[in-house]
């Protein structure tokens, strides 16, 4: 008869920069159940809406997460713009799209580095983050910030990008694409990466749907689901299809994210080629009154912003349903049956963001 033991994983673990705790119930070396404990860093940011007016809250929304900072700000602004019936200029839509896709690249490259680090591939980790630095340099040049750049506002964006800079971004995309191709060959072809990811933590399409998985977690299991296809911002003008895989294992989740970086490069190129001239914001007057559910595709998947306004400058409610929160049940399911040694890599492949989870 096998021995059953409970091993605590986290809340601090070398592969996780943020605290999440799992009690792993093991039979010998195999995980039979994982019991989550979250809540170590809950910040009550949604509650802050009672103290910050709806314009100021944009800055709070951006601070929900450092990696998806721009998209949090954008999603919140889109929700308020829907309530206030504000149509932002087309150029602002394209600029938002460019920064959103750069954010996706920055997020996925960061994650790729963390994954390499977890494998023990230090050089690969540094090369991934070196590529990410080029994206951060673009942020710094175009907005002044490298991670949180406060460029989105209700009614459009605060800063424009000149034609010369757009041309430079386009050239940088070619450099990153070339270097990324070389870099990701290791992830796609290295035997030790394959050994530790292929067939590990398999989530079937049916389970992914039944457990509400979103983003690359769901796409790697065959769910054809991407909010960008709904045509918010400038995506309605761009030509793309969601990156889908069917294996549902750690390798597939890695593959989807890598292919999404290439897709982001393509989307940025398309946006640069199509961006119209014109204003970057419209003046927004008055206070919002009404409610709206807005959905945006973040690097980790679908995020929902629910805002409820009452005609004053203070909102009744802001609620952010983040992708990691949605992916926790799927993570628990994928852990069942895996080896204890595979747990760190498996948790990493859902790209958990605990800051988002504990707004």
């Amino acid at each position: 008869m096998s021995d059953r033991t409970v091993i605590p994983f986290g809340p601090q673990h070398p592969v996780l920069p943020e605290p999440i705790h799992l009690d792993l119930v093991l039979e010998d070396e195999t995980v039979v159940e994982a019991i989550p404990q979250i809540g170590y860093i809950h910040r009550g940011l949604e509650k802050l809406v009672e103290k910050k007016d709806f314009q100021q809250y944009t800055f709070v929304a951006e601070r929900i997460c450092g990696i998806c900072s721009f998209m949090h700000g954008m999603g919140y602004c889109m929700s308020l713009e829907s309530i206030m019936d504000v149509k932002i200029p087309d150029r602002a839509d394209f600029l938002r799209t460019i920064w959103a896709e750069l954010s996706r690249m920055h997020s996925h490259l960061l994650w790729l580095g963390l994954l390499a680090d977890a494998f023990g591939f230090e050089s690969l980790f540094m090369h991934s983050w070196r590529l990410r630095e080029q994206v951060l340099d673009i942020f710094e040049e175009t907005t002044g910030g490298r991670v949180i750049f406060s460029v989105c506002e209700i009614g459009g964006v605060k800063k424009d990008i000149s034609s010369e800079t757009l041309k430079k971004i386009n050239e940088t995309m070619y450099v990153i694409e070339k270097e990324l191709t070389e870099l990701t060959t290791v992830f796609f072809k290295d035997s030790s990466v394959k050994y530790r990811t292929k067939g590990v933590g398999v989530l079937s399409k049916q389970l992914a749907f039944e457990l509400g998985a979103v983003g690359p977690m769901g796409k790697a299991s065959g769910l054809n689901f991407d909010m960008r296809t709904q045509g918010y911002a400038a995506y309605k003008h761009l030509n793309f299809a969601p990156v889908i895989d069917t294996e549902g294992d750690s390798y597939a989740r890695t593959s989807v994210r890598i292919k999404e970086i290439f897709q982001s490069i393509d989307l940025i190129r398309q946006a640069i080629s199509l961006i119209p001239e014109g204003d970057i914001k419209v003046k927004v007057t008055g206070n919002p009154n009404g409610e709206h559910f807005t959905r945006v595709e973040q690097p980790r998947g679908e995020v929902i912003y629910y805002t409820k306004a009452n005609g004053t400058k203070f909102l009744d409610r802001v609620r952010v349903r983040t992708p990691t929160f949605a992916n926790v049940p799927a993570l628990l399911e994928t852990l069942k049956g895996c080896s204890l040694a595979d747990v760190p890599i498996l948790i990493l492949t859902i790209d958990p963001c605990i800051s988002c989870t504990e707004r």
Partner: protein
Amino acid sequence: MEQNIKEIQPGELLTHVVHYKHEGYRLVAISATTKDGIELSYSFDKEYDFIHLRLIIDSTTEIESISSLYSYAFLYENEIKELFGVPIKDISIDFNNQLYRIPIATPFAAKEEKA
């Protein structure tokens, strides 16, 4: 994005959720707002068709958990139970107000007026 909000009575919740489950919708979120009581929104999606069930309860009205239909609802239900004090019974995995280890009980609940 079109907003499809359907107002229901608390006692009708399970009936409507069973319907959406059978129609193949996935649960997307459960949200609470304190406005003239506690306003609950259950959001569902099927191929980008985004719909919301809306019910308003007071802090003493106990509602049924939907975790028997959507297993992963336990996370959303624990969240609104802990932050807003929504009384939900029979949650499949009940953290008993220990999901977020916050020092204040139901911090998002409406404050009672002082006499």
